[in-house]
C-alpha cells in the first residue's frame, strides 16, 4: 500500500492524472490590487497551537533538545553557557523567517504583474489543491517542489495564497540572504535561511533541526524545501539530499506527531528563465553571485515569452504508511527523545528510499511539452552529422512517432489534441527561436552564429546552445531512462540479434549501477527497473523476452536506436572521463583541479573530432562520473582532499565495458 501511494503502477499508461486550470486567466480579468488585498483565511492544521513567528523562536530556544546540545558544547569546548546561548540566538536570528501577510500581499500584487508578462498561463491541478487542503487540516504537511528555477518558491507561495491555503515556510540557501533588501523581503514572505554546509557544526544543526521540527509539530505552517537541495541546471532531477527529509520525518518516528504528509509538487516550465545562464555555468563560467542589481539587470527577461508553467500537486504521501513494516519505532523508546542521535542504519536507508521515491513522484508528474521531444530529436540529428538539419515535415513525422512512444511509456505529455502536428511543431520551435534555426524548410540547432575568434570560443558558444537544448531533452529522460538502459545493455551485450537474457540483465545492472549518480534510480530496485524496461519494450513490440533470450524485433529497431542514442552522450561522457583519468591524471589531482583539467582534455578531443558529443562538456556530467567512479572504487580519495586513480586496472575495465569491448561479467569481477 505504501509503495503504491508514492509511485508506479506496473503500466505507466494507466496512471491517472488530474486536469489543469489556468490561474492567470482570472488575473487578466480582474483587479490585481483587489486580489492582493482580499480576505485571506486559510484552513489550518487541526492540532495547531496558534503562535507568532516570535514565540516560535522562544519555543525553539527553550526546547530540551537545544538545552542538551548547548550544555554538551559547553562541556566539550569549555565555553560559558551564556556565550553559547548567545551564539544560538544569533544563529536563530540569522535563520528565522518573519512571515508577514503584508509582504505576501505585496508579492501577490507584483508577481501577478510579472507573471502576466512573462507567461502565457500558469496551470495548476485543482484536485491536487483540494487534496492539499485536506492534508493540511489532518496532519503537518511538507511541500516538496521540484527545483528548476529561482521562481519556484515565489511561485509556490503565490499559488498557495491564490488558493487560500496556509502559506509555507521555506528552507532557502543562505546565498539569497546576500541580496540586500530582497533577502529580507523573502524572509518576510516565509523564507528561512540555512547555510549551505555546516557538516560538523553540532550547534548549528541542533538549532536548525529544532527550528524546523517546532514549526512542523505545532502546525505553524507547511514546511517547504527542495529535496534536490539546489536548482537543477540540467533539468534532470538531482540525487535527493536527506538532511531535511530526515528532520521532518523525525517527529513521526519519535511519536511526536501522528503522521506527516509529504506532498511532491512538480513544477514544469515550458521555457526556463535561467536557460542559458545554466548552460554557461555548466561550461565553467562561474555562477553570478545573487545580488539585487543582478536581479534588476535580469529584467530584460521581462520582455520575452516564456510560455506556460504547469504545477502539479501530487498525491500526499503519508510518512506513516511509508514507514509501515520498515521502521521499528521502538528503537526510540530507550533514550530520551531530546538527545540527538545519529539515525540508525534502517532509518537512514528508509529515508534514502523515500527520498528517491518522492523525487520519482515529482518526475512522473512533470508536464512535458512537445518541444522536449523536438529537442531530443534535434540533438540526435545534430550529432549524426547532418550539417543541413532536418526537413520540417520529417521532424514532424518523427515527433509524432516519439509522441506516441512517450505516451506508451507513461509520459505526462501536453500535446495539443486538436491542432495539426505540423502547427504544434512550428509553434514550439518559434517559442524557442533562440535555440533553433529554420531555413529552407529545414530545421537545425542555432549553432555557429557567433563571431568567435578561436575555435575553442566557437566550440563553447555552440556548447551553450547544445547544453540548453539538452536541458529540455533531459526533461524527458525519466520517461525513457529504464528502456534506454535496457536498449544500451542489449547493444553492449553482443551484436547478435539474439542475446542471452542473463547477459543482458548483467549488462543492464552494470549500466544502472554506473549511472546511479546521474539519474534517479531507486537504490536496490534493479530487478524492478529491469522488469519495467522489459515490460515497456515488449508491450510496444520492440522486444521479445523469454527466460533465455532477448530478441529485438524488426519494428523495434527504430525504438532501440532512438533509446541508445538518448543514453549515448552519457556513456561517451563517462568513457572520456575514464580515459582522462588513465591518460592524463597520472599524478594525484585535487577535486578543484579535476573539472578544469578534464574540461581541457575534452575540448582537445572535441576539436580533434575524436568526440562527437559537445554536451560532454557539462560539468554536471563530469562531477557525476567522478562520483560514480569513486563509489565503484575505480578512483580513490586520499588524505581527504586529493584524488588518485590508483586502481587503473579497474578504471580501464569500466571504460572498456562502456565501450562494449569487455564482457560485463569481467568488469563486475574487477569492480569487486
Amino acid at each position, binding site marked *: 500500500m505504501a509503495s503504491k501511494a508514492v509511485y508506479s503502477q506496473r503500466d505507466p499508461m494507466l496512471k491517472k492524472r488530474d486536469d489543469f486550470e489556468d490561474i492567470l486567466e482570472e488575473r487578466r480579468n480582474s483587479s490585481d490590487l483587489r486580489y492582493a488585498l482580499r480576505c485571506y483565511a486559510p484552513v489550518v492544521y487541526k*492540532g495547531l497551537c496558534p503562535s507568532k513567528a516570535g514565540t516560535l523562536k522562544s519555543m525553539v530556544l527553550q526546547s530540551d533538545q537545544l538545552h542538551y546540545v548547548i550544555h554538551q558544547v559547553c562541556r566539550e569546548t569549555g565555553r560559558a553557557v551564556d556565550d553559547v546561548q548567545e551564539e544560538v540566538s544569533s544563529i536563530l536570528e540569522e535563520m528565522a523567517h518573519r512571515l508577514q501577510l503584508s509582504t505576501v500581499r505585496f508579492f501577490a500584487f507584483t508577481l501577478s504583474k510579472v507573471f502576466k508578462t512573462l507567461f502565457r498561463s500558469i496551470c495548476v491541478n485543482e484536485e491536487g489543491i483540494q487534496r492539499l487542503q485536506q492534508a493540511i487540516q489532518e496532519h503537518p504537511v511538507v511541500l516538496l517542489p521540484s527545483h528548476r528555477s529561482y521562481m519556484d518558491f515565489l511561485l509556490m507561495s503565490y499559488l498557495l495564497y491564490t488558493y487560500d491555503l496556509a502559506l509555507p515556510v521555506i528552507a532557502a540557501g543562505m546565498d539569497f540572504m546576500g541580496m540586500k533588501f530582497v533577502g529580507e523581503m523573502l524572509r518576510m514572505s516565509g523564507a528561512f535561511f540555512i547555510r549551505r554546509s555546516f557538516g560538523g557544526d553540532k550547534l548549528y544543526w541542533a538549532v536548525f533541526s529544532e527550528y524546523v521540527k517546532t514549526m512542523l509539530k505545532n502546525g505553524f505552517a507547511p514546511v517547504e524545501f527542495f529535496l534536490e537541495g539546489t536548482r537543477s541546471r540540467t533539468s534532470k532531477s538531482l540525487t535527493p539530499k536527506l538532511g531535511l527529509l530526515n528532520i521532518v520525518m523525525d517527529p513521526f518516528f*519519535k*511519536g*511526536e506527531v*501522528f*503522521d506527516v504528509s509529504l506532498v511532491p509538487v512538480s513544477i514544469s516550465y515550458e521555457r526556463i528563465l535561467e536557460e542559458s545562464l545554466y548552460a554557461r555555468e555548466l561550461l565553467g563560467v562561474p555562477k553570478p553571485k545573487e545580488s539585487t542589481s543582478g536581479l534588476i539587470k535580469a529584467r530584460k527577461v521581462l520582455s520575452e515569452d516564456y510560455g506556460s508553467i504547469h504545477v502539479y500537486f501530487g498525491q500526499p504521501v503519508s510518512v506513516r504508511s511509508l514507514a509501515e513494516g520498515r521502521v*521499528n*519505532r*521502538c528503537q*526510540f*523508546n530507550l533514550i*530520551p*527523545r531530546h538527545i540527538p542521535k545519529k539515525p540508525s542504519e534502517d532509518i537512514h536507508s528508509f529515508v534514502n528510499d523515500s527520498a528517491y521515491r518522492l523525487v520519482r513522484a515529482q518526475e512522473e508528474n512533470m508536464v512535458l511539452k512537445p518541444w522536449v521531444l523536438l529537442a531530443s530529436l534535434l540533438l540526435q540529428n545534430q550529432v549524426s552529422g547532418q550539417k543541413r538539419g532536418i526537413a520540417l515535415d520529417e521532424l514532424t513525422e518523427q515527433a509524432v512517432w516519439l509522441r506516441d512512444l512517450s505516451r506508451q511509456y507513461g509520459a505526462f505529455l501536453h500535446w495539443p489534441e486538436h491542432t495539426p502536428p505540423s502547427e504544434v511543431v512550428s509553434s514550439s520551435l518559434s517559442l524557442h527561436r533562440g535555440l533553433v534555426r529554420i531555413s529552407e524548410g529545414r530545421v537545425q540547432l542555432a549553432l555557429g552564429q557567433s563571431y568567435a575568434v578561436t575555435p575553442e570560443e566557437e566550440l563553447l558558444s555552440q556548447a551553450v546552445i547544445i547544453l540548453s537544448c539538452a536541458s529540455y531533452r533531459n526533461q524527458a529522460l525519466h520517461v525513457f531512462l529504464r528502456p534506454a538502459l535496457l536498449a544500451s545493455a542489449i547493444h553492449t551485450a553482443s551484436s547478435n540479434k539474439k542475446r542471452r537474457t542473463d547477459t543482458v540483465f548483467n549488462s543492464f545492472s552494470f549500466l544502472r549501477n554506473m549511472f546511479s549518480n546521474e539519474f534517479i534510480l531507486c537504490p536496490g530496485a534493479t530487478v524492478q527497473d529491469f522488469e519495467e524496461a522489459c515490460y515497456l519494450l515488449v508491450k510496444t513490440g520492440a522486444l521479445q523476452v523469454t527466460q533465455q533470450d532477448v530478441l529485438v524485433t524488426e519494428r523495434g529497431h527504430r525504438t532501440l536506436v532512438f533509446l541508445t542514442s538518448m543514453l549515448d552522450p552519457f556513456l561517451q561522457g563517462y568513457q572520456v572521463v575514464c580515459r582522462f583519468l588513465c591518460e592524463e591524471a597520472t599524478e594525484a589531482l585535487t577535486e578543484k583541479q579535476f573539472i578544469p583539467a578534464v574540461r581541457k582534455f575534452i575540448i582537445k578531443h572535441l576539436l580533434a573530432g575524436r568526440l562527437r558529443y559537445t554536451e560532454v562538456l557539462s560539468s554536471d556530467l563530469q562531477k557525476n562520473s567522478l562520483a560514480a567512479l569513486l563509489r565503484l572504487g575505480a578512483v580513490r580519495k586520499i588524505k581527504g582532499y586529493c584524488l588518485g586513480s590508483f586502481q587503473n586496472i579497474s578504471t580501464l575495465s569500466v571504460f572498456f565495458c562502456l565501450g562494449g569491448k569487455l564482457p560485463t561479467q569481467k568488469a563486475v569481477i574487477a569492480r569487486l
Partner: protein
Amino acid sequence: MASNSSGGSSDRQRIAQQRLRIIAGHLQRPVDGDSAILAAECKAQGSKPDTSREEKTVPRRRQEIMKWNGWGYSDSRFLFNKKGQAEFTGKRYRLSGMIIPGLKDWFECTFGASLQHKTPATPLLNSSAVQPPTLNEAFVEELKSTGIPFSQDAEDRVFRAHGHCLHEIFALREGKFGRVPDMVVWPNCHNDVVKIVELASKHNVCLIPYGGGTSVSSALECPPEETRSIVSLDTSQMNRILWVDEKNLTAHVEAGIVGQDLERLLNESGYCTGHEPDSMEFSSLGGWVATRASGMKKNIYGNIEDLVVHIKMVTPQGVIEKSCQGPRMSTGPDIHHFIMGSEGTLGVVTEVTMKIRPMPEYQKYGSVVFPNFEQGVACLREVARQRCAPASIRLMDNEQFKFGHALKPQVSSIFTSFLDGLKKFYITKFKGFDPNRLCVATLLFEGDREKVLQHEKQVYDIAAKFGGLAAGEDNGQRGYMLTFVIAYLRDLGMDYYVIGESFETSVPWDRVLDICRNVKARIVRECKERGVQFPPLSTCRVTQTYDAGACVYFYFAFNYRGLSDPVHVYEQVEHAAREEILANGGSLSHHHGVGKLRKEWMRETVSNVGMGMLKSVKDYVDPNNIFGNRNLL
C-alpha cells in the same frame, strides 16, 4: 431449538427457582445500607452484608447471582425503558433505580446508534450446545474419595470458560461456546488444593485456576488444542481471613476472597488493605497476585507487589513459600516475583499475607476542570514530581468528560439543575473554556481530616497553576462511580450494535500526550480503513501517576452495523492500537496482564534471554504443563 424443547420445561423450572432465590436474597438485605465509608457507596454492596463471616458474596453456583453472558450481578443492568430513557436496574449501586436522561442522546450521537436497531443476547444458556465433558475417570474417582466438591454441570463449566474480553462475551451472547473446562472443583482450603494438584499431576489432567473471572486478557480461555481433561479450579470457597496481626499490621487471607469481601471483613475490625482495583467487586486476591494487579488508591497503599508480605503457592513440584515475614530481604531474586504475574501457569496461590492499614478517618472526593488535556497532563506530572498525589488522581479526556456528563442521573430539584447551569456558564463563558476541549481530573483524598484538607489545598494550588478550576466533590464522585458501571454499560451497548472495550498501558511522562494522541488517532484511522461505518468512540484517561510515568487507559467502542464480522474488526483495531502503544514507548500492560491476548509481544517486551528465564522456570516448576492455560509464554 427443536432439540431444546424437551429440556425447556426443566430449564424454566430451574430459572424460576433461581429467581425466587434471588428475590429472597434481596429481601434479606437490610434497609439501611449506609456504610462507614463514602467510597463504598460507589460499589455494589454485597448481597448479605450483615451476615456472619461464613456467608460470602460468591456462591459456588455463581450464575445464581451473576450474569452468565455479561458483566456483574444479574439484577443490575442498564436498559432503555419504554419512554426511551436509560435506567439502571437493581438496588446495589448508587445509580440503581435511577433514570439517566442524557444517556440516550449521548449514545445515539456518539455512535450513530439507534434504539430501533437491537441486537439482543440469547437469553438462556443452551446446555446442549456445550460440548460434553472429556473426563479423566481415574482422576474423578480419586477426587471423589477426597470429598472435595466438584461439578460437571454445563452451566458451571461455561461460566468458567471465559473472562470478559469482548470476543468472549460476544460469543456467549450469541450462544456460542468453544472449548470449556470439563469439570469444576471447589477446594475449601490450602490442603484441598495440594490434593487436587497432586492428583492432577498423577493423572496428567490440565488445571486452570479460576478466581474472580474478571480477566481481560483471554487468560481463562481453554486452549482449543488441549486434549487432556481440563479442570477449572475455582478458588471462591477459599475466602476466609485466617488471622489478623495488629502488631505488624498484616492479615493472612485465603486467596479466593474477592475484593469487596476482603475490605468489608477487614473494615469490621477497623482495617483495610486499600487495594481497590476497578474490578474489586468480583476479582480475587489470588487473581491480583497472579496478574500483578494495581489498585486505584495505590498512591497511598501501593500496588499488589507492595502489599504482599508472604505468598503460598501450590505447584506440581510442591508448595513454594518464604520462611519468614521479614519486610524486605536480600536473598537473591525475590521468589515472589516468579509468582506475581505468573498468570496461573505455575500453580495456584492459596494463601497470602497482606499489609493492612487502619481505616482512614476521612475521605473526600474532588475534581478539577482544565481548559485542555495538555494542561491536565502537565498538572498531573507536577503533582507526581512533588510526590503529593492524593489517594487517587485521574484525568479524563474531553470525550470521557462528556460521557461522564451523560451519565448524570436525573436531578431532583430545580435548584440543582439551576446550579449546574450556572457552573457550566461560569466555566465555558466566564472562564472561556472550550466545551469541546476541556477535561476533568477526579480526585480522592484519604487520611485524617486535617491532613486531607491541607493536602487538598496543595493539590488545588498546583492545579490552579495549570489553569485548573475546582469543580466540586460531586463530579469527582461520579467519575469514580463510572468505573464501576462502565462494564455494565458495555452490555447495554451490545444490545444496540455497539461493541467496545478498554485496554491500558504505562508510559514515561514525556510520552503521555503523544501516546494518547497517536493511539486515539490510530484507532480512528484503523476503524475507517476496516469499513466501520460510524466514527468510533476513541478516548483515554490517565489513571495512575508514578515518579517516572503514568498509567493510561484507552476506551474504544464503535457501532458495528454493516460489518459482517465485527469481533474480528474489533480485534484487528485493538491489535493495531497495541502496536501503536508499543511504538510510542508504552508497555505491553500496566496491570491487566498478558494472558493469551498479548502473548505475541512478550518476546520483544522482555528480550530473548528474559523469555528463556521465564521458560526455564516454567520447565522446572511444571514440566508436564499441568497448569496448561498457556498464558504469558
